[in-house]
């Protein structure tokens, strides 16, 4: 809040900082964070990680871009409506358990199997991954929507 900043001695609160170092490094770090987010997401089933953490981390990467550049630039980079992102995530997360009725199994019943892929060897395939994709999209969309709402209010 601006009044708090004023009390702390800031005479003028600057709107946007054009920091060359921040902008350049964030271009690199953005991809590292996104990759780590996907790594966490796919690690989710047997080791710590999953859709929620991955989604938050992906949102954090985009928020880094928001800090380094301004909102217009980021909107040009990623022309996504976050409401649609949330709705898509919810459809995937809620639609998959509903589909299990088609197979005659109760709500939320998952199927899984193991397949052999040339390079990686034996890989587990689990229908819960699709559910997690929904969670990933919803969480990332919610976090970004909240940040966007706060940023818009500040104009």
């Amino acid at each position, binding site marked *: 809040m601006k009044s*708090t900043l004023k009390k702390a001695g800031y005479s003028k609160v600057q709107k946007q900082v054009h920091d060359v170092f921040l902008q350049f490094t964030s271009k690199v770090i953005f991809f590292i964070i996104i990759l780590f987010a996907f790594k966490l997401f796919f690690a989710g089933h047997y080791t710590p990680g999953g859709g929620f953490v991955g989604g938050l981390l992906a949102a954090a990467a985009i928020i880094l871009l928001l800090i380094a550049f301004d909102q217009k630039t980021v909107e040009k980079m990623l022309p996504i409506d976050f409401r649609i992102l949330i709705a898509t995530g919810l459809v995937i997360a809620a639609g998959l358990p509903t589909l299990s009725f088609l197979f005659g199994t109760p709500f939320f019943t998952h199927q899984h199997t193991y397949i052999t892929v040339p390079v990686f060897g034996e890989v587990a395939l689990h229908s819960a991954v699709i559910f997690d994709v929904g969670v990933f999209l919803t969480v990332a969309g919610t976090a970004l929507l909240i940040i966007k*709402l706060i940023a818009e209010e500040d104009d």
Partner: protein
Amino acid sequence: MELITIILSGILIGSSVYMMLSKSIIRIIIGTALLSHGVHLMLLTMGRLKQGNVPVLDPEVSSYTDPLPQALILTAIVIAFALTSYILVLALRMYRELGTDNVEEMKGVPHDD
């Protein structure tokens, strides 16, 4: 080990009460976040802490950790995340609409029908 985490969650909840009794909205929000952290730590402790055991029930494993509290905490954390983010947006709206972040000064706002 359980005793330490219980005391820690007590400290968290106590400080959250202190924060929530202050007048600034931001402090109140930090207080609610601390309260949820303390409560989640308590929930984790209630499943009994065992170090280094797997949270999987398997015939080959004789000693395992109860996986349920961890699953419950994940759900509770997600909910606390959603609530905290909403309350932050609301606080900003209030600051812009009412022009203050002090709850004492919000008392006298007249009701508009």
